[in-house]
Every structure is written in C-alpha cells, then in structure tokens.
C-alpha cells in the first residue's frame, strides 16, 4: 500500500507541548478568585448516615461552601436506566471505606482540608461483607435494597449442547482461575476546574478520557440542557478506563460549590485518594470446565464467573457481558455456557479497565487449553493453531455461535510468526537453569474487541474545516488521553485529503464546538472517529476536486492530491499547490466556506445482554505473545527478560503509536500478572501508595519486540483494527505460561507473587532442594 502519510513513523502532533511542559492538564488550570474543593470521606466501611452537622465547618474563616447529599436532591446515575444506584455524595448510607460524604470549598486547599475535619457525621455502623462468594450467601449483609441477594448483574447464556459435548469429549478439565484487584495506575489523579455561570451554564476543565459522559452527567445532575454544559478538554494524564470515563464526587462538589458561590472551584485528588477510592478493575473468579478431543480440538466450554463488583453497579453490566461474549474467539467453539454473576461487596467500586471483561476469561481459557495440551502431549503453539479461527477470505465472514462476526482474523499468522522466531524455535537451546534461576518460555493467543458498539449513544461525528490558506482544522469529540488518537486522526485526515500531516491541526475537545463522540473506551477511536474523519475529509476533498476540475476543465476523478500537491493523474507535471487550490475554492465568486462532516456508521445489530449474542465491537484484534523469564526458585522472584508480541491490528496506521500501545499494554499486563494487587482488610486498602501498590518501574521491564500482522480489515479506516488493549490481554496468560515452563507448576491466581511461588514449590517438595 503506497500511502503518503499512513504507516509513516511520525512524531505525535502534541509531542512538542509535552516535551516542553507547555501541555496543560486539569490541575494546571486556574482562574482568578478560584476556590479549592476538598472531599470528606467516611471512616467507616458500611453504615447508615444518621446526621451530618456542617455548622462548624461553615464557620471556619475562608470557607465559602459546604456540600452534602441533600444538595443533589436525590439524583443518582448509572450505566443503564435500571442501575442508577450511584449518588454524587453518599445518600443515607455509605457502602465502602472513604466513600465521599461531603465537600468543602474554601479560599485555599489547607483551609478546605481543615474544614472537612470539622464536619461531624453520625454513623450507625452496619456489618460488612468483603468477598463476593460470601456476599451471595443467604444472610449476608444487604448492600443495596434493590438487590436483596447482592447480585448486581446476572447472565445465563447457553449455546449448543455443552453436556452432550462433554460426554463425547476425550478429555474434560475443571479448574478455578482468579484475576486480582488491580487498578489503572495513571500518574495524573482526577482533577477539574469548574465554573457555574449564574446565568445557568456550566464550564469545566476536567481530567476525563470520555468528556461526553461527564457532559451528560452534569446536565442531568444540575438539570440543565446539554447546550448549556461545556466540557473543555485539557491534556489528560492517562486514562485506561474506569474513573476518567466516569464522574467522581469531586466533580459534582466542585460544580455545586461554584453554583453556590459564583466562583470557579477546583479540586485535585491526592494519589492516595485515587488509589484507595477510585474505580478498579473487577476481580473475577472463573470456574471453567473445558472439553477437547484426543487431537486437542475444543468441544465445549462452561464458565461460571463470579465477579466482585464493589459497592455500586457502574458499568458492571457491560463488564460481565464482555467476559462472556468473547469466549468463542479466537478459538473455534460450537458449545458454550456462561453463567456470570457480578456481586456487590463493601469494597471500592469495580468498573472498566483496559482489556475490559475479556481479560478475565481469556486468561482462564488460554491457560486451561495449555493444561489440556500438556495432558495430551501437544505442543502449546500447535494446540492453538489447531483450534484458531482461520482468517476469513475477503468478502466472507466468520460467525461464532453467539453472532460475533469476524471479517479478518490473524490469529494463526500471529502464532506462526512467534513459532518461527528464535525465542520459541530455539528455546531448547537456551539455558534452562543458571544458578538458582530456572528459565521458561510461555505463549498466549488472545483476542480483543475494538470499535465498541454497545447500548446508549454510540455515534460520533467529525468536522473538517478548510482554512483559506490551505491548512486544515479537524474537530472531533474524540479524546487523546495518551493513546495517540489526535495523531492518528490527523494522519487519516491528511491521507484522505492528500495534504502533509503538518498542515492538519486538530482542535482539542470542547463540547461547545466539537461534535459528539462517546469517548475513548472500547478501542473505538481510530475505527469510528477515524471513519467519521475520513468521511468528513472526503467531503472536503470532493468540493476541492470540483473546484480544480472547473479550473482545468476536466473531470474531478482525473485529479489527484498527494503531499499537498494537486496534479492530473494522466499528466503529473500539471500541478498546483494545495494552498492555491484552497484559495481558488474559497475565493470563488464572493467566497465559499468549505466544510466537511462525517459520521461513523456503527452497527445496527444491538447487543443482547439476555442471550449474549451480538458484536460488542466493529472488529477484533488478535495477539500472540511469547514471554521469556527466569524464576529464582529460592526467592520466588520472576525476572522477565523478553516479550515478543505479534499483533494483528489490521494495519498499524501510526506505527510508533501502535508499538508504544503494545509495549505499554504488555507492561501494564505484566504488572497485573506478577506484581499488582490491592491488599484488602475488611474493606480497607492496605497499600494505596505507589510504594506498595507495585507497578513495574524502569528496572522491571523486559526487552520488547513487536511483529505487525497485517490483515487489512474492511471495517476500519485504511484497514485498521484496535491496537490499544490486545497486548494487555495477551500478557498475563503468556507470563503465567512461562512461569509454568520454568517451575512445572500451574498458577491460576493473579498476581503470581514470589510468596505464592515459594509456597507452591514448598508444597510440591521442590523448594531449596
């Protein structure tokens, strides 16, 4: 493919601002007369709120407003109309430790903090429950009255005939797997600057990766029309799903305080507040039964998933949907049964995070396939190759039993690339044991959904505005939270128009001016906002080609534009600059405004939460990952030396961006696999600091190589599929497979810490022998 811009290695369009410190994030904004907001949090895990006395706080000099739940008039929000159980501040009851109970706005941070300590709250403590399987039992404390059995979300899906398939299988295994309590770990804590204009409009500069969610929350909460809510996007210091796709107590308190005082109000959470209270990934237990033939072909999978939901529902219904619906990819499966339970506990709320939902069951099933392969004596890559879905021929579609459709699938190609690489092919020739360290190589083959299309408002638009000097503005509602979408959208616009990348300037999201976009989640931006951008650019190009055609007295289809040069296809020497064409078009007659608009055409098949059928995304990425590591058999420490990631993202449009996403996603997945876990003690997070919530540092990461698997998917701009989350899902099973290779032990619970390894070695009589 001979693209001028797509596929080029280019610096990010915002790299200059970032390396000079000019990029402003939410906490960097201030306005004159600004107040600071701090949140008071409950010291008790589960309790009725009997009374809140704010009088002393209100009297502290420098305090301008104190906010409690009653200010919000009973408003709550949630992912679905039936799950609106979350209030801006605890209403009548607190359900997790440090849940926000009140907010204070004062002339400086210290006074605001001091004032929170003067608010007197009377609680009546209630018994708490902290384990989802305990919470499901009869007699467990009820966390939400509308779910008396504490089951927040429940699905029961059944495809084919698992019982018959198991009965006919050569081998059937039943195993239990568990993913841990982990969080996004972004460096920038939630923050926002809010201004409620007395005329009845809101402007906020918040750290959000999906500003339009927040836009709708504010409109609903403050009973304003959307047209009067303005979210202006600062640079965002990392998103990864969950909290920055949602609104937090500080957001609502800051806006309410601004409404009450007429002044701008800013809040910035501390990192400790973030780590101990913000939304985390669900921790899920998968009880999995898997059957196979003697040749290792999968016959059936039955998965009972019990997920810890924490104290509110949030996006839980989707998390549980994704955990089940992707069970039949990337390996062919005719029979599967899924029983998913998301259970309330008195712990911080569990919501979305990179690799949403799919990561839990993919981990379980990838590992279980290897366990079966081991019993059958089949090589682990061979096992996957035998079961992997083939890349559909162009024009055809692979359809799973639950109507997940694939037009491209590079799973086999990715596995084959790993198989040929020395890291796998030469593994018998690399040292197996050096001193007390045993080396191992592991493999995974996973799938992830991209171009999310779900319930609610999923549409997105883009506008291209041609300036008279031939430069271009791109306006979309899509947010770059670090994943690089601003750059790739500019590349798409530039490629489509035929201009140089430098001539396209993207305007950051401002809901007053940019068209709506659901946000940066579900790996949808390159695909859907990219498609909208491409369409908008095509519309501008059409108008320009018509202007050129008139001038040269030819047909528009005879003209091409590339690298900002307009020329005749049949005679490349007949040219004019793009700038001149722009002037020509804009100044024709008494002037013309050249605009293009485009909308993504998202799928028409809705998801069916009840049966589990349908596409959660536009297309799916496929990742094969090899991991080489050494396990110190005496201390249990794992040192990962190499990752090799073969990733089918259709076509990497922005290669530097796609590589970095793969590298970062895999390292974040490594963190989950062996280092990270919130240690909870009756609802209290014991380790809410960067010191003790162990995310990988520069000295912990392996050398990483990426192999691109090109499949050119027809549903993505220039063949693209997602490149944000695939390697985050492939990393944990790959690492844990490698640990098995090094130790001979199957670890089924993440994180696989040194302590767990030493304990298992001891139990197997293998420690210090």
């Amino acid at each position, binding site marked *: 493919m001979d693209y001028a811009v797509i596929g080029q290695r280019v610096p990010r369009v915002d790299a200059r601002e970032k390396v000079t410190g000019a990029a402003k994030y939410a906490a960097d904004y201030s306005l004159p007369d600004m107040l600071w907001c701090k949140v008071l949090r409950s010291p008790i895990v589960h309790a009725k709120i009997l009374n809140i006395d704010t009088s002393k706080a209100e009297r502290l000099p420098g305090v301008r407003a104190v906010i409690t739940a009653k200010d919000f008039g009973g408003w709550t929000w949630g992912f679905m109309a039936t799950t609106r159980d979350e209030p801006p501040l605890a209403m009548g009851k607190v359900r997790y430790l440090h849940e926000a109970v009140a907010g204070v706005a004062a002339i400086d941070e210290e006074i605001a903090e001091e004032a929170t300590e003067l608010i007197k709250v009377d609680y009546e403590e209630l018994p708490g429950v902290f384990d989802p399987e305990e919470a499901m039992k009869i007699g467990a404390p009820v966390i939400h009255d509308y779910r008396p059995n504490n089951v927040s979300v429940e699905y029961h899906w059944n495809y084919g005939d698992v019982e018959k398939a198991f009965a006919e299988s050569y081998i059937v295994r039943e195993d239990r797997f568990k993913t841990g309590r982990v969080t996004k770990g972004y460096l920038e804590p939630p923050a926002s600057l809010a201004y409620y204009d007395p005329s009845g409009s809101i402007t906020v500069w918040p750290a959000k990766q999906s500003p339009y969610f927040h836009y709708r929350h504010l409109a609903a909460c403050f009973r304003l029309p959307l047209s009067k809510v303005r979210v202006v996007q600062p640079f965002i210091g990392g998103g990864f799903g969950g909290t920055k796709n949602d609104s937090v107590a500080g957001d609502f308190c800051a806006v309410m305080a601004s409404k009450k005082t007429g002044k701008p109000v800013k809040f910035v959470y501390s990192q400790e507040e973030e780590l101990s209270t913000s939304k985390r990934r669900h921790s899920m237990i998968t009880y999995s039964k898997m059957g196979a033939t003697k040749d290792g072909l999968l016959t059936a999978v039955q998965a009972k998933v019990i997920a810890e939901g924490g104290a509110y529902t949030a996006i839980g219904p989707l998390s549980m949907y994704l955990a089940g619906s992707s069970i039949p990819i990337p390996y062919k499966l005719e029979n599967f049964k899924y029983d998913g339970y998301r259970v309330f506990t008195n712990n911080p709320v569990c919501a979305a995070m990179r690799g949403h939902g799919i990561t839990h069951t993919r981990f379980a099933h990838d590992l279980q396939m290897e366990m079966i392969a081991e019993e059958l004596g089949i090589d682990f890559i061979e096992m996957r190759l035998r079961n992997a879905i083939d890349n559909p021929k162009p024009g055809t579609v692979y359809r799973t039993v639950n109507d997940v459709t694939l037009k491209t699938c590079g799973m086999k190609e990715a596995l084959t690339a790993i198989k040929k690489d020395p890291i796998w092919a030469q593994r018998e020739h690399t040292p197996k044991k050096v001193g007390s360290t045993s080396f191992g190589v592991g493999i995974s083959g996973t799938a992830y959904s991209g171009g999310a299309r779900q319930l609610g408002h999923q549409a997105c638009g883009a506008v291209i505005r041609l300036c008279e000097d031939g430069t271009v503005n791109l306006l979309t509602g899509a947010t770059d939270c670090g994943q690089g979408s601003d750059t790739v959208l500019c590349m798409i616009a530039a490629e489509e128009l035929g201009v140089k990348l430098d001539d396209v300037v993207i305007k950051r999201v401002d809901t007053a001016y940019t068209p709506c976009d659901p946000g940066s989640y579900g790996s949808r931006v390159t695909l859907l906002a990219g498609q909208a951008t491409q369409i908008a650019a095509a519309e501008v190009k059409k108008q320009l080609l018509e202007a050129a055609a008139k001038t040269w007295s030819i047909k528009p289809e005879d003209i091409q534009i590339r690298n900002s040069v307009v020329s005749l296809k049949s005679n490349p020497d007949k040219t004019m600059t793009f700038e001149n064409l722009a002037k020509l078009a804009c100044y024709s007659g008494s002037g013309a405004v050249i605009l293009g608009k485009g909308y993504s055409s998202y799928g028409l098949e809705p998801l069916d939460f009840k049966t589990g059928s349908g596409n959660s995304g536009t297309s799916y990425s496929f990742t094969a990952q090899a991991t080489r590591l050494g396990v110190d058999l*005496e201390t249990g420490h794992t040192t990962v030396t190499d990752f090799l990631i073969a990733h089918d993202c259709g076509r990497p449009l922005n290669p530097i961006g796609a590589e970095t996403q793969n590298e970062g996603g895999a390292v974040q997945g490594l963190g989950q696999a062996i280092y990270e876990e919130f240690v909870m003690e009756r609802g209290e997070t014991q380790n809410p600091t960067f010191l003790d919530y162990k995310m990988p540092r520069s000295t*912990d990461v392996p050398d990483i190589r990426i192999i691109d698997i090109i499949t050119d998917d027809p549903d993505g701009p220039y063949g693209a599929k997602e490149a944000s989350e695939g390697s985050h899902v492939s990393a944990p099973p790959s690492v844990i497979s490698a640990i098995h290779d090094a130790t001979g032990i199957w670890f089924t619970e993440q994180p696989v810490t040194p302590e767990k390894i030493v304990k298992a070695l001891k139990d197997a009589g293998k420690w210090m022998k």
Partner: protein
Amino acid sequence: MLGSYKGDAKPLAGGTDLIPQIKAREMAALRVVVDLKAIPGLDAITYDATKGLSIGATATVTAVERSPLVRQYYPMLANALTTMASPQVRNRATITGNICSAVPSADSAPTLLAMEAILRLQNQKGERLVPITQFFTGPRQTVLANDELITEIRIPVPPPKSCGVYLKLSPRKSMDLAVVGVAAFVVREGETCKDVRIALGAVAPTPIREARAESALLGKKLNDESIAEAAGAASSECRPIDDHRAAREYRCDMVYVLTKRALTQLKEEAL
C-alpha cells in the same frame, strides 16, 4: 533550640521522611523545623587510617555512595546505599535520617550494624557516643532524646582480611522497602572466621544483629555446612510480622536464603 521547643520542633536534613509525614498531617503539634543543612561542615565525609570513616549528619546518601573514600574502604556501604529509593531521593536523603526514622527495613541499618558504627549524639548539655547496636529500641523508636541530634556516624577501620555484603529482597527491582535485608561481614584469620557479624532488616521490631547465627560461624571455616547452620539459626531467630508486604513464614524463609547467599558470596570472594 530543639530543647526549647520540647518536641514541637524537629530537625530537618533531607526531609524525605519528614515532609511526607508533615503532609499526611501526622505532626499536628509541629511548629518548627530546624534546617540542619545550614550548619557548615556537618556534611563532611572524612577517613582516617586509625579512626575510620566519619560521616557528617547532613551528608546526602548520594554523597556517601559516591565518595571515593567510601568506595575504596567501605564498598559494602556504597552498594547498600544504591538500593535505596531513587536518585532524586538519594540526592536529598541522609543516612542519619534513615536510621532516625528507625523503620525496621531501613536500608542503611544492617550494614551499619554489621560494621559496628558508632553514633555521636549531641545536645546543649554535651555529647555521648552510642554504638548503633544500642540505638534502636522499637519500630520508629530510638534512644535519641527530643533535644538531641546525631551529628556524626563513625565506622571503624575495617579489619584486615575482612569483607562484607548487603543483600536486599523486595518485590521489584527499585523503589521498594526491603522485605528482608541481610548484611554479612566476616573477618578471617587463616581459614577460620575471627569475627562474624550478621545483621537483618525488616524481620524484627528493629534492625538487629543475629547473635546465634554469628556464633555458629565464629572460629569455624566458611563452608557450605557452617553457612547452612548460620542461615538456619538466623531464620529461626528472626521475629518478623505478617503484613501486607509479606507474611511471616516467607520472611523467615528468605532470611535463610539471603543469609546463605550473602555468606556464600563472601566465601567465594575470599578465595
């Protein structure tokens, strides 16, 4: 000056422990912070062939770690200090601050114990010399009075034919507190150990010297057998807690592993 504020004042050197405590509002009564860095000469690092090493109270961890004197005569200390935190923290933190914090896992403590450092404590009334082995009294507790400062850390000249090593065990390779820290220091006479010092961090209420492990090696040859015996003694004697960082059983097991490794490394070094 500290005396006149009676506990409402704290000395400040690097601030890497104190400032987070102030921010966490753990020091409600604190009114004054006395910046010791203003005192000239308090950061000096000197070496004398008879008196040994003198580290001034405000000498930063980086300065000590990089000091050619320390690297030449006390390489064990230099290496131990590189395991602490980050370059940014080491550029400000002091060893004095590290031992005054008296957290059981303090990374400089096992080495100082193994090298039998002596601390000079001063106040308005005078001064006293306290061996580091008597300095720690409990988690975050020392013999230092409210009006006293450590002004100097002295480490005796290492005896001839001596060598030592500090091994730190933690989940990641950087930015972690030690889950177990072992410092071993051996003085040889011929084939046998004339003096053995084994110090442990993070496995007791304070950093400790491991007497039973030491006596298992005194007067003996350093070989696999005697090393295993010493490691076993150290492991059975340590009294760590169960906390979110590690369980008791694991810490005791790791005391065995690290003690064995440290002594084995010293055995190989001497060959």
